[in-house]
Structure formats: C-alpha cells, structure tokens
C-alpha cells in the first residue's frame, strides 16, 4: 500500500500538528484554523512548499498549529520576514498571519510596504478590535468611546479602516470574510491563493474573552440579513431578509435604497465588479460601515500587477544577459589594478 509512486492526496489532517491548540475555548481563531486546514490540501501545492509566517499576538500563534514550515517572528514584523522568504524562494506559498494590533499598530509601516511591493503572499488579518494576548487593551480598530482596561473613560482614537488602508497602500487583492462562515473563508482563501500578487484578507474574528460579540450587530443571527452585504461578481448590490434593499450611487456616496420604493429597480443599483481599473468603487465598499450601511463581505478588489519577486528575477536575468554571469576573480580585480 505504501509503495505507490503517486503522491497521496493531501487532506485536512495532514495540516494538523500534534501541538495542543492553546486559544481560549470559543475563540474565533479555531474556525479560521479549520478553514485554512481545509483550504491548503485543495489548492495543488505540495505541503512542504507552504510557509506560514506570523508576528505576535493571539492570531500569530497560528504557525504552531499548522503542519507546514512556519515562522513565529516578532511583533508587527512578519511582513519583513515573509518578504525575505518569498524573495529568497519564489516557489513557496507564503501565508502571513497577523492581527489588528500586530498588523495595523506596531506593524502598520511594514504592512503598508508589503502591500505596495506586491509579493505573491497571502495576508490574513484577524480583526477582533482588541488586544487579546495582553489581556484587553483597545486596539487600532477599536471603535471610538470603547471602554477597555487602558481606556477606562473610553477610547479617543479614531479607528483605522483595514480595507481602506490596504486599498490606499496599493494592495492588488482585497477581501473580507468572517469567522462564523467557514465555507466563505475557504472560498476567500482559495481566491487569495489564486491571485498572483499580494492578497489582503480581513477576517472579522470574535474574541470571546475581551471583546465578545464585537461583530454580533453585523453578523449575529438576528442582524446579519440586514447588516451583511455578500458581494457576488457581476451581481447588483442587494441585501436584506426580503432581498429588497440595495446600494446605489448618489453623487459621490453609496446610499441604501429599497427596491420598488420611489421607482427604484435593480438597474439603479451598483453592480459588483472586482476588476474595475481604479479602486474608487472598492473604496466605497471599504467605507460602508455599521450602523450606516450594511457591511460588505467578499472580494472587494483585484488588479494584475507584476510581483516583487518576478521583477527582481527579471532584473537579475537582464543583468546576466547584459553583463554575462559574474566572475568573482574579475570582480575583485576591478578595472584599476597594477602589478607589483
């Protein structure tokens, strides 16, 4: 049985490590782990070519639970290490795990630069709007007025919008998914993998201990029909229990309209297209937030641009074509040498 030459097909359990998973019971991270362990066997990459890189925080323990190559680095700096790995070996499928504090606070600078450089790396940002591993301080995505251990009178910081940040940084694939929908996560991760270039995926993730039900007013059972807008390629932006609400453009702002009221029909609505040449439409989506509009879930934006590692490889090829492969002895000699 074991003599078969063909590679056995990978399954989810090939990606499960022996390590005990040490997240709190009920943490949204379990569902994300499950979703990624289901995704990786199905995308045609040998297991040894996966490398998972993370920073610091609850989410960043992720590599320890994935039976792949993994690197748990330092706070906020995973983008740098991931860039180094991908630049050194472009064959690897590199997945970077970060959180709202890791990616958007201490590592905000690095996140900006990995996104603009466009290496073919998949970035999963677990957004729970709180610092969990340090036990409950407000994060850069916490809402204004948030009372936490470090903001007893409420946060006075304007929160950062992760999707808007990624778009402005020049990310070439931007999507949002939610930890209570494994199927949607798997689809989104597969699409992120398929994209050639940097993929940025924000995942709404519930911290059951320090910020429980943070997203319930969006994706909780009672609210999700009216508060979640699932994005589908080529389809008009329609949501609501009765599927009778939509988004249309009013001047320069998206507005919620009711189909059938005031003569509004589907043709008035914005149609979801991820490959519009400019990210303006995706910015509309990024700025749609609770409680003013439904929250878009799905792929916001895709663009094709050359990847960092390919541009570098091209330069090396061009240099070798123009100058020939390097000769170290000639390099040491230089052009100004003399005999003594």
């Amino acid at each position, binding site marked *: 049985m074991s003599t078969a030459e063909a590679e056995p097909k990978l399954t989810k359990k090939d990606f499960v490590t022996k390590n005990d998973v040490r997240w709190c019971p009920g943490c949204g991270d379990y569902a994300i782990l499950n979703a990624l362990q289901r995704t990786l066997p199905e995308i045609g990459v040998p297991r040894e070519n996966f490398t998972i890189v993370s920073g610091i925080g609850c989410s960043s323990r992720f590599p320890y639970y994935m039976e792949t190559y993994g690197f748990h680095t330092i706070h906020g700096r995973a983008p740098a290490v991931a860039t*180094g*790995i991908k630049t*050194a070996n472009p064959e*690897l499928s590199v997945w970077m795990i970060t959180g709202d504090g890791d990616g958007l606070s201490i590592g905000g600078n690095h996140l900006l630069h990995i996104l603009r450089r466009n290496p073919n790396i998949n970035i999963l940002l677990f957004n729970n709007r709180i610092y969990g591993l340090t036990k409950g301080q407000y994060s850069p995505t916490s809402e204004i007025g948030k009372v936490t251990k470090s903001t007893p009178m409420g946060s006075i910081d304007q929160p950062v919008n992760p999707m808007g940040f990624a778009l402005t940084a020049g990310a070439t694939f931007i999507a949002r998914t939610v930890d209570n929908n494994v199927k949607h996560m798997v689809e989104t991760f597969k699409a992120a993998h398929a994209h050639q270039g940097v993929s940025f995926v924000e995942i709404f993730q519930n911290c059951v201990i320090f910020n429980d039900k943070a997203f319930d007013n969006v994706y909780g059972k009672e609210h999700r029909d009216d508060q979640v807008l699932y994005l589908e390629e080529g389809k008009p932006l329609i949501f609501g229990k009765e599927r009778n609400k939509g988004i249309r453009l009013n001047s320069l702002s998206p507005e919620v309209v009711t189909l059938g009221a005031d003569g509004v029909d589907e043709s008035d609505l914005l149609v979801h297209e991820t490959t519009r040449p400019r990210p303006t439409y995706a910015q509309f989506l990024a700025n749609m937030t609770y409680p003013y509009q439904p929250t878009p879930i799905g792929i916001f934006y895709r663009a094709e641009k050359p990847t960092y590692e390919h541009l570098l490889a091209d330069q090396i090829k061009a240099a070798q074509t123009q100058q020939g492969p390097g000769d170290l002895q000639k*390099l*040491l*000699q230089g052009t100004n*040498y003399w005999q*003594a």
Partner: protein
Amino acid sequence: MSVSEAEFKELESVVIRFAGDSGDGMQTIGEQFTDSSAFAGNDISTLPDFPAEIRAPAGTLPGVSGFQIQFGSKEILTPGDAPDALVAMNPAALKTNLADLTPGGLLLMNTAAFTKANLEMAGYTINPLEDQALELEYDVIKIDINQFTLDALAEIEELKSKDKLRCKNFFALGFMYWVYDRSLKPTVDFLNNKWGKRLPHIAEANIKVLKAGYFFGETTETSRNRYRIERAEVEPGQYRKISGNEAIVYGLMVAAEKCQRRLLYSGYPITPASSILETISRQKNFGVKTVQAEDEIAAIGVAIGASFAGNLGVTGTSGPGMCLKSEFIGLAVITELPLIICNIQRGGPSTGLPTKTEQGDLLQCMFGRNSDSPIPIIAASTPSDCFDAAIEAARIAVQYSTPVILLSDLYLANGSEPWKIPAVADIPEFTVPFRTEIPADGFNVYERDPQTLSRRQAIPGQPGLEHRIGGLEKDPRGGVSYDPTNHEQMTRLRDAKVQGIANSLPPLKVNGDATGKLLVLGWGGTYGSITSAVNEMRHEGYSVSNVHLRHINPLPNDLGPILKNFEHVLIPELNLGQLSLLIRAKYLVDAIGFNKVQGKPFTVLDIKNKISEILS
C-alpha cells in the same frame, strides 16, 4: 635655474590634505591623487572627511570637505597624523585645517576665494593672504586658481565661466602632481573614461586645467623644492585600491560562493553603510538579491526570512540602525539562524556625528538585547581587512548557525589602501549542507552538532521536515516550552555554542616580543595607528608589543595567557573604555584605558605619547 633631477628631495612618506567647499570636488581630486600614487608604486592610506550636510552653504566652516592621503616608500598603515601639505581652496578650509599642518609645511591657497564675504564667513578679521606670520611658519604658495582656470579654458566655448570654474580642483591637483612628481596619465585616463564619450568637452576642459596646474609649477615655481617618493617594497602580485565598504561587499560575495548559498542583502540607507547596499545592488549578474527595505527593522527581517529560506541573509547599518534591529537580532539568536549584521560605526549616541568615526557600539553589540543573548562579534582592522573579516563572519554564521555582528567603522568604510588581490580559488570553502533526510529517530529542530553545538537547518521545500521556529523558547524537538529547566538548558547551550567558536580560531599574532613591559591591545580601525606607534616605539628601544583582536566575542583562548606575559596592558579605543570593561571583567587584568571620542582616529603620536607616559 633649470629643472634638473638634483632639485628633487627624497622622502619616505608624505601626508597631503585637500580641503575646500563640499562642492569643490575635494573627494574627487583626493581619489585621483590616491590612484596616481598607487600606480607610482607607493603604499597608501586615505581618509576622506566630509560634512553631514550634502551642501552646507558655500564658504562656511561646516561646509568644508577634506581628503587626506599618506603615501610612501615604506609601509603605510594610517592616513597620517598631520599633513605635510595643505591645499586650501577657500578661507573656511584654511581656518578648519591650518592647525593640523606641520610647521614648515606646504600651504597652497586659492587667492580668488579669499573675498571679503568668504573671509567673514570663515571668521577672519585679517586676510591670511596678507598675514606675515603665516609666511614665516609655512611654505606658502598663493595662486589665483580661478583666473588660471579661466585662462586655460579661454578657447572652450561650450562652457560658461561658472562651469569652467568647476574644473578648478584639477588645477590644484595638477600643481600637486608637479610638486610630488606624479604622472598625469592615470588622471587623464580617468577623465577620458568618465566623460570622453558622453561629454568630451568636459573631459577636455578638466585635462587642460590639470595640465595648466602642472605647467604652472614647471614655469613659475622653478626654484621650489620638489619631492620624490620611491616605490614601496611590497610582496609581488596584483594590487588594487580598495575601501572598507567595497571590501565588505566582495567578501560577502566570495563567502556566499564558498558556502554555496545565494546572497541576499537587505539594507536601509544610513551613513556610512549605504555604499554597501549601493555597491552590492550593482552585482545582480552574480545572482545576488538586494532589497532596500522600508526601515532598519524590516531590513534585518528580510535578511532573516531569506536565511530561513536557505539564502545567506545579510543586513548592514550603523549605530542608530543597530538600536532598531536589536529585537530581530534576538529572534535570530533564539531561532539560531545564520545571519550577518554589518555595523559600520559612527559617532553617537543617537544621530551623533553621522560622518565621523567612533568605536562606540561594542558593548551595544555585546549586550544590546533582552536577556542572555550571546552573539559572535568580528571586527575588521583595515579597509582591505574588511574582505577577510566578512568571510570570517560568514564562516561563523554558517558553521555555528548564528547571527554574527561584523564591526567596521566610518574610518575603514571610507578609507582606502592598496590590496593584494587574492585568488578566489585559494579561499577555503565552508559549506554546511541543509537537512534533506528525516533522521531515523525523527527530526529534532534543535538537534546539535556535537562539535560546534550548531543546529542543522531544514529549509522550506523539503518534504517531511516541516517544522516551526520562532521567538518563543523551544525544547530540543522544536516544541514551544515554558519548562524552567529547559529554558536554562537552552540558554546555556546558546552561550556554550558561541563560546565554543574560540576553539576554531587561529593563534593570536603578537607584534613584537611575546613578553615585555607593555602590551597594547586594540580592536577594529585603530590597527594602523597602534601598530605604527608600537613599531616606532620599539625602534626607539621601548619594551612594547601589540595584539589586535579580530574576534571580540568569543575572545580567543590564548588572549588570557598573552596578557599575563606583560607588566601592563594598554587598551586604546575610540570610546570611553568598552573593550577595557570586557577585558577587565574577564581576565581581572588592571588594563589601562586610553580613550578618545572626537570623531577622529588616533594619531600615531597620540599612542606614542601614551606609551611613553606609561613606560617612563
């Protein structure tokens, strides 16, 4: 009087300093004088000295840029204590450099620049051109270089007067070539190579002015002494001139070849390390990968990622960048990944003196991380030695699976000297293959080589060896461990691994007798000053020897016994006593510190005076 051989005075060595505005092209003519002297077969050592500002306001004291060269027929180990000749292109250059000029030294001044405005900016109330005291103390030559430059270029119509005057540095150079009997050919070739194809009139103009300077000497200064410096006796072979940062680049490239790993260099612009990034990024035809990262932290992170994936990851920086990199260095220590961190030191703390030299980062490199975080430290001693030091840093990084700090400094980085070009084929290899097979008893991530205690890396892409590393403490199998005894064991193992590197080091070389009254112990860029001083003092009959350290962590096994062979130990450093602290702590030796933090190297005289103070 006719020009004859009899007018030449033979000298063993000469120090010249060119000084002018930072836009006057002093570095260019300094480099040219260096090349011509190298071609003439002299030994040389150079020291550029330029301001932090790219173009401080013209004529001001902070805007002065200088270049010093010592060349000779004997072994030259430093750029020289005090110039025998000073070229002052303006009053500010005179003001900032005159104090260094040897009494009786040649002083060339460009009279055209001694205008009222320039004199005021330099703080002169009396015009030095009219100062009789100056004439008495020095061999003063006043030339209206601007006018002679314009005259020489009268027929070149493509250039406006302003552009013509940009050639004036070559007049000064031409004149100095005449005084020191240098051939014009290397500079003429340089100008033709640089401008000949693109802007031939620029090449022509500069060559004309260069010759005008030379012929000015020949026709109007005929009664002047000229000097001749014979070829230096050197080991036969092929030579070139090399600066410290160039040598680091070449050393890293050869090292990558010798360990069969691809080189990835990741840096962030910082003085005086930027030229490493710039030079290495021009070597892409060798397959070298370079990344200019968004900051110092990312620069080392990229290099660590590259090492994890199987490249030879290298980053380079200076003091402020070292501060930023320290957390990542700790990560490389605990994950035991090979990595080279080049620290080209400059004056500090903080931004400090960005364009001046210092040795102030030693203790930062030793201890500047949280917890017990041992890291090997290698120090280069001369510009060309940076080549060997870089290879040694790579050898230790690869053989001991560890980050290594390679210490250089601004003085070595920007200084240059002749270098006997080594045969690449003769440089030993130091390959350590990555794991490709799963050991029979399973793969333990931190399984150690019994000799070196290093862990053997498995890199992504290798089936069956999937594993995780990271900043959390691990057990030997690679699992996260909070076990108290495991942490102590791993801490001790990391330390023992680094200390064990001492067993791979060659014996120290003692310059001078193996026993005696005084041992001068140095490290890094002070090699030239210390060795020159010790050689001269020995010549004068003093019982003094010196040892210069290449390895500072771990210290060589034979250092302790050597220290015991001397009554006194003197440690000169361009800091307030950092190596002293280490030596005193480790060997309980009452070492005497000799410390200077002026942004300048030790002069040979500084060290000689200190030696005679101790020995008399």
